[in-house]
């Protein structure tokens, strides 16, 4: 008798898995992270490296399971903000019916980067793999990517025109330090709760302007109800191997051995060479997410609380004095 070989078609199995999660959701956040790892080979860092920061995986879990509505991701350069934004968008779009997302980039380049993370063009990760193509309704365009479950994504560059129009449930803003204040204010009126999906604003940015929009958003976060997810280069750094000695390491000053427990993707070698190339202020601000550098400002020690007083003559009646 012939031995029958079981034909395990992995593409079919993956599709069955997608369909299961589309209809039944995920058992727990860990299953979601496992799904991300299996389908995209993405290991979203989960380790709590800096005690005052949040691991990026926490952001993905909180937004997908709608534990937070409005959030700000303040992270280092190359910390995966745009990729995680694209990932979070794609997860919402695939697994939530009638979920509309509008993504506004601070610049044309930024919007393109977000779109490329979906399609896989250029340096993009390519989240819309063959496994998910059967879900697409029509052609995949930056201006409109629609799915058979009536969810859609719009990726645009922030402008007075792009903040008008339909009201999706989720608005994502990428690199808001590049946004115009008025456009940002107008954009805040875009998201509306619909089809059981809560309206939410999610912001991704570095903070590189001392008095920029990101600084304002962070300062007013508690008041506006934004949850801040902050991670620095050490939170997304690859695990430091045992053979690397801390005493001789150029990152020791800031790392203090934290990278030994990291589980991210950022190359240690890259971090070392970047630290060599930039000034201490830039390193602290762009990579360790400290308050922005005062470098280049005419009055570095200017403090709005100390140096700005109300006009003493403002309340005086006309003609007085």
């Amino acid at each position, binding site marked *: 008798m012939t031995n029958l*070989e079981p034909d395990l078609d992995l593409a079919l199995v993956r599709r069955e898995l997608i369909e299961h999660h589309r209809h039944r959701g995920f058992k727990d956040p860990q299953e979601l992270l496992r799904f991300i790892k299996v389908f995209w080979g993405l290991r979203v860092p989960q380790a709590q490296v800096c005690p005052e920061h949040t691991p990026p995986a926490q952001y993905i879990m909180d937004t997908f399971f709608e534990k937070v509505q409005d959030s700000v991701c303040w992270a280092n350069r190359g910390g995966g903000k745009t990729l995680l934004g694209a990932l979070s968008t794609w997860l919402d779009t695939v697994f939530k019916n009638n979920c509309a997302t509008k993504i506004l980039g601070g610049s044309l380049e930024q919007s393109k980067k977000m779109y490329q993370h979906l399609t896989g063009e250029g340096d993009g990760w390519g989240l819309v793999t063959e496994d998910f193509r059967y879900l697409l309704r029509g052609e995949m365009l930056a201006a409109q990517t629609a799915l058979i479950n009536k969810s859609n994504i719009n990726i645009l560059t922030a402008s007075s025109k792009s903040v008008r129009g339909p009201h999706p449930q989720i608005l994502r803003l990428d690199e808001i330090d590049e946004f115009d204040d008025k456009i940002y204010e107008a954009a805040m009126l875009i998201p509306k709760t619909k089809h059981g999906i809560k309206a939410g604003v999610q912001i991704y940015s570095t903070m590189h302007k001392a008095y920029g929009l990101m600084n304002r958003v962070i300062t007013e976060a508690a008041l506006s109800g934004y949850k801040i997810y902050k991670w620095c280069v050490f939170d997304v750094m690859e695990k430091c191997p045992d053979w690397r000695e801390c005493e001789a390491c150029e990152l020791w000053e800031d790392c203090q051995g934290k990278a030994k427990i990291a589980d991210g993707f950022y190359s240690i070698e890259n971090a070392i060479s970047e630290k060599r190339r930039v000034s201490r202020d830039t390193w602290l601000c762009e990579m360790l997410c400290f308050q922005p550098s005062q470098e280049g400002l005419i009055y570095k020690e200017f403090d709005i609380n100390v140096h700005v007083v109300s006009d003493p003559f403002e309340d005086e009646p006309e003609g007085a004095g």
Partner: protein
Amino acid sequence: MTSSETPQSKPEIPPISRLRQQRIREIQDLFDTGLKVSEIAKIYGISERQVRRDKEDGKAFDRALSKAVDQAEVLGREIRSYEQAMRMEWRSYRLATNPFVKVACMRNLIALKEKYIKFLQGAGLIDKVPEQIKVTGLPMEDDEVRSAIYAVLELVREKIEENAP
């Protein structure tokens, strides 16, 4: 009851003279080339009504021809030709003294047998033996099954990444 046992009804060909049968075939060809009824009527010097009647009779003639095909007879003829070819190949094999010719005969025989089996399977005369079972409809709602599937997919991805240049 298999198709070979199905009693074949006699073809219901309308009583048409050979000459008219020939005209019907020609008219059918002219219709296929795109000629109109009036044009065909002019060619044969007959009325348009007669052309239409010929066209209808042509259809009945075609239907009758398809009914006349005896499936069992066609299959039997094919089987006989396969068996005859194999017998001849066996004979050539036995008579051959050159070992290279013997090998060539054996190859031909194997190829013939494979074709013959495929023909019989295609005709539904013998069952196709499945070589693989497609694993589908996995019980995804079972947490343990899902976890095992994730483990397999993780392993596959790791292996692919390991072998990536």
